[in-house]
């Protein structure tokens, strides 16, 4: 789960996610942020959904221009489901980047319960990753996993496959090591550049 990195695609996608915000001040000429507004100006007290990157910068201003609210998937009702049994939830449908988005949302949660819900969810759903890595029907096992969980499960499945093939094979065929193969390609790429 590589996030909070300037070049991370996941992070860019996550920060583009829209979250509900309440504007605390009148903002002239910013009416376009609220698609339902008829005016050019944005009134104080308007509720609108804006991307996280915008919400973050508006929130960190002194005084803050917006008040960030929790998206519905992180609210009490959903949190109760997740805390009861996280394994029944299809995180892929609920939000592909559930954990990453949750980390951004967690700091705006006054009660601080989103963070513990995230950790709880991760702990409970580890069993799903384990079973997805050995499942024969990998497509249906992978289906309810979020994007980062899918990556982890796929990596685990790869190890599992390698181990199984090692155990079954009688002898070891000699092949080029990955490192060596990559090294040669890199050399050729370098030669072509100059």
């Amino acid at each position, binding site marked *: *789960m590589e*996030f*909070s990195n300037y070049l991370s695609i996941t992070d860019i996608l996550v920060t583009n996610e829209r979250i509900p915000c309440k504007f605390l001040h009148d903002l002239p000429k910013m009416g376009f942020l609220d698609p339902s507004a008829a005016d050019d100006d944005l009134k104080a007290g308007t509720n609108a959904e804006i991307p996280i990157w915008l919400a973050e910068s508006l929130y960190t201003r002194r005084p803050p221009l917006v008040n960030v609210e929790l998206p519905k998937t992180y609210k009490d009702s959903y949190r109760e489901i997740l805390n009861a049994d996280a394994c029944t939830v299809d995180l892929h449908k609920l939000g592909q980047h559930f*954990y990453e988005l*949750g*980390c951004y949302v*967690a*700091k705006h*949660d006054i*009660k*601080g319960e*989103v*963070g*513990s819900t*995230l*950790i709880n969810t*991760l*702990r*409970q759903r*580890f*069993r799903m*990753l*384990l079973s997805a*890595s050995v499942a024969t029907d990998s497509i249906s096992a992978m289906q309810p996993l979020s994007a*980062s969980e899918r990556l*982890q*499960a796929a*990596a*685990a499945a*790869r*190890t*599992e496959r*390698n*181990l199984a*093939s*090692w*155990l079954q094979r*009688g*002898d*070891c065929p000699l092949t080029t*090591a*990955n490192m060596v193969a990559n090294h040669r390609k890199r050399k050729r790429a370098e030669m072509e550049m100059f």
Partner: protein
Amino acid sequence: MDPYEIEFIGENRIISIIPNFTYDKIYLICGEFGPFRAGLPMNVPLWLALMLKQKQKCRIVPPDWMDMDALENIKEEEKRSRFFTKMPNEHYMVEAKLILGAASEDVPNASEIKTVIKDIWDIRMSKLRTSMDALMKSGGGYGRLDHLTMMEINSVKPLLPAAMDSLLRIQMKSKKTTPANLNVSSFSQSGGSSQNI
């Protein structure tokens, strides 16, 4: 890491052979071995032993632990204990697979031994999986890897560290930004309750 890479590391272990030819000392990167005297037992690395065996130049002396009674004891112990027991050999699986694969006629009761070792491996692997799950559920911050062999550690490698990693990241993120309300499991607390994995 690929299992074959671990096999390569395991192939450096020294085992006993009885050569059927006579030759001077040989000088290898990993040391000098020999001189070879026909009929006299001597120690060589596993890979060399296998190579000589394939050319029918030697007989492999099975390691002490590759014995029916000893392995049955280990299996019982492994079944009884909640934790992992100490294996007779850091690369028991690699050694067993290579020796039994190439020189099964040199080992008495080869097929039974193969089954017992496979049983031990299966018991340990299922124990490893259940304790991994228990570790994550119980909220432990670290796991002890006592008596796990390299091949077994490798089998959990991308999954468990990645999960612990994302756990730590979420904990750091939600802790850093909300210093006022500490979460249920702060990191020092969860470190205390360790699981034996």
